[in-house]
């Protein structure tokens, strides 16, 4: 409903006020007159009228009412059988507006959670570990830019659509990774973010069906989220993939994810990096035990991913897979060459992976040094505890 009001009114704040007015009016009228046949259409109509009243009162008549009334005459007789299609279109428009590339990624994510997902400003602030005032300002600034820079409230033209979908998916994936990361902050909020990201993924998949990038991202999120119950202990300690109790994994999510991976890889068009990552997650999900993981295929998929996304993090993950196929020495060579090229900096996972490989090679003092470097570079408490545990185990050998 908010999405529809934003389309009709062309302004986020005005639409939010209109929605509140409409709900207030419904509380007054419905108990007396009964719920109308089309409650949503009723609310939209009342909301729009309230907003027009508001605009008139604010003496913005010249600037805004005239164009709106022209638009309204086209809107008053919506084809009723299209009600749901309309609703979907409005949602899609809203997502593309919130994730417009002229907004920075932080603003896109905040605005999407606030407007599309309906989280409150304090909830969004808590999710991103910033103060409520900071988040409120970020939202105000984003809405101001939409209004003043003329960001359209529209689904992009077909020619632009693929490019713009990438931007939307990046924002959705950021919501998910923010929720999935083992950072400080309450678990409830984190799970909520993953849940919202998956909901957005499903919505996109429904509204823009059969697109490998969307299917791939949704699959990736489902397959990772399936592991949530197994990846931390009750005390909040990290349980590594190899040690997880796989019976705790969410089978429903895995099944949905696996079907989507097949669809994403079987679709037409270029291979989506999300689909490749999802295919990797699928191989983990399919392995009944860690020892039965299909590492050669995972290493191969990382090579494909490296061609699509040649980033240091992908290289690092590729090296880990290689260590399971060709042993730790070849992987260590890859990691050392990655480190020598620079560009990855003092990344804690680089040190952690090196430490692990050195430990498996029996090079204990060097492994301890690397664990120390990882510990110094890590900023998250559960990660630090894991690294400390590893160091202690090694010292006791």
């Amino acid at each position, binding site marked *: 409903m908010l999405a529809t009001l934003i389309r009709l009114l062309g302004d986020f704040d005005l639409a939010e006020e209109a929605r509140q007015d409409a709900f207030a009016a419904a509380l007054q009228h419905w108990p007396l007159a009964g719920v109308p046949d089309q409650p949503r259409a009723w609310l939209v109509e009342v909301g729009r009228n309230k907003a027009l009243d508001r605009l008139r009162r604010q003496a913005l008549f010249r*600037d805004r009412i005239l164009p709106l009334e022209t638009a309204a005459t086209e809107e008053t007789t919506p084809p009723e059988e299209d009600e749901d299609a309309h609703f979907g279109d409005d949602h899609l428009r809203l997502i593309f507006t919130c994730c*417009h*590339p*002229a*907004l*920075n990624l932080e*603003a896109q994510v905040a605005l999407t959670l606030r407007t599309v997902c309906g989280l409150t400003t304090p909830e969004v602030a808590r999710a991103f570990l910033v103060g409520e005032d900071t988040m409120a300002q970020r939202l105000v*600034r984003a809405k*101001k*830019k939409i209004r*003043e*820079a*003329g*960001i*359209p409230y*529209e689904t*992009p033209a077909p020619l*632009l659509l693929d*490019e713009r979908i990438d931007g939307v998916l990046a924002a959705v994936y950021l919501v998910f990774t923010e929720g999935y990361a083992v950072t400080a902050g309450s678990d409830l909020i984190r799970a909520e973010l993953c849940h919202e990201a998956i909901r957005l993924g499903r919505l996109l998949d429904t509204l823009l069906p059969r697109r490998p990038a969307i299917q791939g991202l949704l699959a990736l999120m489902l397959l990772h989220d399936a592991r949530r119950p197994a990846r931390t202990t009750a005390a909040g300690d990290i349980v590594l993939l190899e040690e997880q109790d796989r019976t705790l994994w969410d089978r429903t999510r895995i099944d949905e994810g696996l079907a989507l991976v097949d669809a994403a890889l079987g679709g037409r068009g270029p291979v989506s990096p999300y689909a490749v990552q999802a295919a990797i997650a699928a191989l983990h999900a399919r392995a009944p035990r860690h020892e039965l993981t299909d590492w050669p295929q995972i290493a191969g998929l990382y090579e494909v991913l490296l061609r699509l996304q040649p980033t240091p993090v992908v290289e690092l993950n590729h090296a880990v897979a290689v260590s399971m196929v060709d042993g730790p020495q070849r992987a260590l060579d890859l990691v050392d060459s990655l480190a020598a090229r620079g560009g990855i900096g003092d990344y804690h996972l680089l040190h952690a992976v090196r430490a692990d490989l050195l430990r498996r090679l029996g090079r204990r003092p060097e492994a301890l040094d690397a664990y120390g470097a990882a510990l110094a570079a890590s900023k998250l408490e559960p990660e630090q505890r894991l690294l400390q545990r590893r160091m202690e185990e090694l010292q006791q050998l």
Partner: protein
Amino acid sequence: MQYLLLIYRNEAEMMAMSPATAETQMLAYRDFTQSIIQSGNFKAGDRLRPTSTATTVRVRDGRTVTTDGPFAETREQLGGYYMVEAKDLDEAIAIAARIPNARDGSIEVRPIWVLNKA
């Protein structure tokens, strides 16, 4: 000869100005504009919306890359301008991306501040 006069000033100070000072400055601008219209020097001039509304557009490897915020490099210098009418930011970005220098330089897209003609 034609010349482009570019106005640089501290945006934060502008925003923090008292209504009285802002009024004085607006009148000064009005007088100045009137004077160059009368003298026949005036071609075009507008006030821009603040940098918070700016979008920077670059085309790299055939892909349009948009970033939030004004152009902030010191390696590139202002070399020209177009003023265009576009129905929304997407159209403005699409036009900006077609400017030849979008492929090696940057184009800042900033909305004109249309003053109320009351």
